[in-house]
């Protein structure tokens, strides 16, 4: 009986810009132009400003629970730059705000969502995004379905990217989506932001596999692990994956190794379970610092520009807050009016009597007492 190797696989790790801002010119060739890096840095900074403002809004009682994006901006911005706005679809989780606004979602929608208002999910016409996904891991199947529709319609030069964390890869729907996408060979990019923590559960308690990227091997899917705080590596990996997708090569998997510098959400306190030393080490790998070092090393960035950007970001975000808070209360009818395209009679009755003594019952019920007295 022969016993031979049935399968062998390896996982590449890609880093182009290291923690110290040192750039690998060979690997980084034909990635981002200087102008693109400046733009990307500005988007990352604006995202951080939005994030910190959102945190303060929650702390001052002006917004509900909010999950900070802090530390993961390079992953969001690098991936968003590699996808084509207005053409591709994004199926996000909730820690890639920059990708959403870079692909056309008005920034105040993000705040509205966390202010407990569904109008923050009322994605405008022409913006190809699914709303922020609160349940973990269910939306990768939607991304796969959207990509499947693209394939069925033979749409050229279109792909989907879906974002999720390391914890999401424990969900059955993650594996379902990977299996469907690879079996059907649809144009979708699975982009895992491995930020090491799923609320309080560290990655080694989440999975036994030393990389997340290797999970894609089971689906014979091209897969790579990249430094998720390295704008260039993220961009390169997503760009390659997108190219493969639109050329009919099917789905790809990317594990972007990054770190959640904040708590899971404003309702969480990571000090209960996370070592301060670990956090301190990652604070030094902050993607904003690293990208700025790169720009400075190439004389593309000055203190003056930084000051200007800081002011611009503050102005943009304060306008966004003003817009979100100025939207006004939603109509109570909205509770009902989007249940179906056309409301059935019973729902109309419930809506039209919600503030009356009949408590949502049929109007005849309200008159019952009178009828009984007559009898």
């Amino acid at each position, binding site marked *: 009986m022969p016993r031979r190797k049935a399968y062998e696989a390896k996982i590449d790790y890609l880093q182009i810009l290291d923690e110290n801002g040192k750039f690998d010119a060979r690997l980084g060739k034909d990635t981002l132009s200087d102008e693109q890096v400046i733009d990307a840095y500005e988007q990352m900074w604006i995202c951080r400003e939005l994030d910190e403002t959102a945190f303060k809004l929650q702390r001052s009682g002006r917004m509900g629970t909010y999950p900070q994006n802090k530390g993961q901006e390079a992953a969001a911005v690098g991936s968003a730059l590699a996808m084509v706005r207005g053409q591709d679809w994004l199926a996000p989780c909730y820690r890639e705000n920059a990708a959403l606004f870079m692909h056309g979602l008005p920034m105040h929608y993000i705040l509205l969502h966390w202010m407990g208002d569904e109008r923050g999910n009322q*994605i405008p016409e022409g913006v190809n995004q699914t709303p922020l996904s609160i349940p973990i891991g269910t939306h990768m*199947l*939607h991304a796969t*379905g959207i990509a*499947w529709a693209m394939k069925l319609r033979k749409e050229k030069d279109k792909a989907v990217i879906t974002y999720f964390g390391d914890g999401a890869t424990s969900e059955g*729907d993650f594996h379902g989506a990977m299996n469907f996408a690879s079996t059907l060979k649809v144009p979708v990019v699975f982009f895992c932001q491995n930020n090491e923590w799923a609320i309080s559960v560290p990655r080694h308690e989440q999975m036994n596999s030393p990389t997340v990227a290797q999970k894609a091997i089971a689906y014979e899917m091209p897969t790579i692990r990249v430094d998720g705080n390295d704008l260039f590596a993220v961009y390169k990996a997503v760009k390659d994956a997108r190219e493969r997708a639109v050329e009919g090569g099917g789905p790809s998997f990317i594990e972007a190794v990054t770190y959640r510098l904040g708590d899971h959400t404003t309702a969480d306190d990571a000090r209960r379970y996370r070592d301060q030393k670990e956090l301190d080490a990652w604070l030094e790998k902050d993607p904003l610092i690293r990208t700025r070092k790169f720009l400075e090393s190439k004389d593309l960035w000055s203190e003056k520009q930084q000051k200007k950007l800081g002011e611009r970001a503050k102005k943009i975000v304060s306008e966004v807050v003003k817009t979100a808070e100025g939207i006004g209360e939603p109509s109570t009818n909205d509770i009902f009016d989007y249940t179906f395209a056309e409301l*059935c009679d019973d729902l109309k009755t419930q809506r039209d009597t919600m503030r009356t003594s009949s408590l949502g019952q049929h109007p005849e019920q309200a008159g*019952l007492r009178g009828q009984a007295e007559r009898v």
Partner: protein
Amino acid sequence: MAQLTLVQAINQALDQEMERDERVIILGEDVGVNGGVFRVTEGLAEKYGKHRVQNTPLDESGIMGTAVGLAMADMRPIPEIQFEGFLGPAYDQLVNHAARFRTRTRGAITIPMTVRVPVGGGIHAPELHSDSPEAIYAHHPGLKVLMPSTPYDAKGMLISAIRDPDPCVFFEPKRVYRSFREEVPEDEYTIEIGKAKVVSEGEDLTVVTWGASVFQCLEMMDELPEDVSVELIDLRTIYPMDIDTVAQSVEKTGRCVIVHEAPKTCGLGAELIARIQERCFLSLEAPVQRVTGFDTVMPYYKLELDYLPDAARIGEGVKACLAY
């Protein structure tokens, strides 16, 4: 007009809608060349191509979740879940996503899809192939739940469901799949969702049922004394429920028996009774009776006929209600 079984009528509806609208695609386990385990999709893969009648991996949540994505992208998916017992793994995608997207996005993203699911007992199938979970899905806002009992209704209601802009769960009573034939027009037609059907008119008592139980009720009516006049209503749509037709009938007869295969507690009968007492309290001559499955696990098939409401048990309920 052709005489068709329920299976053939559903097949014809699928065929005509696929012909009419190329956004319509079928996905599910074994739906391709095999035509599905009940042969409902027979011949469609050959006619429209395997890409429109797509065999999927064995993953109900994957079927439902990718159907949600297809619908988001303006396709008209028809996912098939092989048996109602296997809706469990797909439950999250159906009730937490398909049902919620219109509300969640204030109308920006909608899910026009029709989930086809064989339902109910009586065919001597293995475990989890014979349940009746319709009330569970009627309880979830954002879903329309249908259960036709005849070939004619099945064709018209399925076409309505496929064209509906919202997610529909289309339950097919498998006991009726090949139990009889009736005339079904070749041309396409629709039957309005949310409309019950008065199967036979009567004066003394109203029986409300749906799915395969319609035929147990008809059998019961054949065995009743000639001077007892029963009005039989086939609810057809579980949600939105046509309470107007039921109330009109109960106001006339003053007595009502509800029959369903599903367990008694929190079954749809409970909701019907609440609605009947809201609407017809002063017309009622007797408490509304329920003849239902029991609050037990559906037994394996050796005992399934003891579990399912049959003509004799329904007859007892009718007599008790009339004698009150």
